[in-house]
């Protein structure tokens, strides 16, 4: 395959605020977007970004996706529509759960007022592909459009599929990412019941005291383009999506395979797909959920994929320490965080990391950002995303 994939625009709405640069700058400065045990996108006011009709016609997860997509296409220099052939412009946006807020509200309406009272907008709002469909409609993206659903790997899977669409020749441009708005009564209670959530309300990946993840919400969207097409239109190129791979643990419904076998394989395959040696990676943006199981198996996976020696040299940090776990949006938001970190050649920190755990002995960039390798080497990094169900997706990015 000779078609190469460039990133020409990024957009994000996260607990650290509205905007991809805001995410990068605040995280790098050590700011946390977590309050009272939740990572809410508190600075996001839908009406500031969307029309009355758009707000009414979308669940919060779609609203977040629309805002992130708006920023991304503007960042890519679009004037409201694809610069190229709309038929060859695609849209792939993942989510873990989709419009669960709508589902919960309408379920209550049905119980309290009867089936005849539920909103005719229920299904179009709650369907997990709504974000993808609505973004495609707004920007006249007429190529392939669909959602990906793989729990907390969904955003990374979406971007991986988008990359394949371009490389395979099905599309020249894809608006892609992930979105999630699941801080709802049922979803929160359900994650809590399975003991996945942090009792302390503190996200501290890789720390000995980590006790579960902190729920977050938000969206991340990227504009990917085939390199020649992007250069022809004079687009500013932020970086390259060099490679992608995905594997399955085939092990347990929720627990990662302890040795990190599947995750390690995904890392190795992503590097192979990118044609890049393990030694050329200068930064890893970990999935790093702050759960006891993930952070241990992910550490094992990084060691297995890079070799003990190289693994200990690599800066590895977790965005979730600053924003919590954005579930289906995590892989997308974190790939944007990875790209901007590589562009600025800075490793943002793993916040709240104070007490090392036995066997978790990588360089987790504790609490303070640090400069990455200087400009003489290529700025290549990985973004890991793993989901309940045993889904592993890894993206290999390079800043231009």
């Amino acid at each position, binding site marked *: 395959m000779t078609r190469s994939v460039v990133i020409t625009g990024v957009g994000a709405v996260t607990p650290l605020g509205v905007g991809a640069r805001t995410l990068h700058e605040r995280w790098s400065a050590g700011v946390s977007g977590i309050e009272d045990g939740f990572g809410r996108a508190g600075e996001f006011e839908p009406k500031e970004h969307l*029309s*009355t*009709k*758009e707000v*009414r*016609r979308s669940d919060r997860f779609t609203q977040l996706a629309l805002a992130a997509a708006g920023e991304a296409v503007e960042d890519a220099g679009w004037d409201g529509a694809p610069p190229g052939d709309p038929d060859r412009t695609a849209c792939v946006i993942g989510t873990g759960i989709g419009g669960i807020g709508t589902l919960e509200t309408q379920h209550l309406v049905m119980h309290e007022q009867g089936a005849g*009272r539920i*909103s*005719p*907008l229920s299904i*179009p709002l709650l369907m997990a592909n709504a974000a993808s469909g609505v973004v495609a409609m707004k920007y006249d993206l007429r190529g392939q459009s669909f959602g990906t659903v793989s729990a907390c790997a969904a955003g990374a899977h979406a971007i991986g599929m988008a990359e394949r669409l371009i490389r395979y020749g099905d599309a020249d441009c894809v608006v892609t990412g992930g979105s999630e708005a699941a801080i709802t009564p049922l979803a929160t209670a359900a994650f809590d019941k399975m003991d996945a959530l942090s009792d302390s309300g503190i996200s501290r990946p890789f720390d000995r005291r980590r006790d579960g993840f902190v729920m977050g919400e938000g969206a991340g969207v990227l504009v990917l383009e085939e390199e020649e097409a992007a250069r022809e239109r004079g687009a500013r190129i932020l970086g390259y999506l060099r490679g992608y791979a995905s594997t399955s643990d085939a092990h347990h419904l929720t627990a990662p395979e302890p040795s990190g076998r599947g995750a390690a394989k995904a890392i190795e395959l992503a590097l192979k797909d990118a044609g890049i040696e393990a030694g050329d990676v200068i930064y890893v943006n970990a999935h790093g959920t702050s759960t006891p199981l993930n952070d241990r198996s992910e550490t094992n996976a990084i060691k297995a994929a890079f070799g003990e020696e190289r693994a200990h040299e690599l800066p590895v940090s977790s965005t979730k320490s600053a924003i919590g776990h954005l579930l289906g949006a995590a892989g997308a938001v974190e790939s944007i965080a990875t790209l901007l970190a590589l562009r600025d050649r800075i490793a943002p920190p793993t916040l709240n990391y104070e007490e090392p755990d036995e066997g978790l002995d990588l360089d987790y960039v504790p609490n303070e950002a640090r400069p990455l390798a200087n400009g003489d080497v290529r700025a290549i990094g990985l973004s890991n995303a793993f989901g309940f169900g045993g889904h592993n997706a890894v993206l290999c990015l390079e800043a231009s």
Partner: protein
Amino acid sequence: MAATATREEIEQRVFKALEEFGAEPDQISPDAEFESMDVDSLDLVELAQIVEDDYGVQLKGEDMEGVKTVRQAVDLVMSKLG
């Protein structure tokens, strides 16, 4: 209530609903077509729910067929009330 609702009251209620649906206020008039205000079939189902809540009038899908303007919608509600 149903017995006391005037034509004007119903019309104002429909105007208010259309504004909530996202129609531009300066486009809303008795003879404006729903389509021109970007009001579609999903919105009309919601409008039927509002009418039922406020006036106790049940509108079915087939009742709404052919209803293209605010005036026609108000006529329909009035005829059901009558």
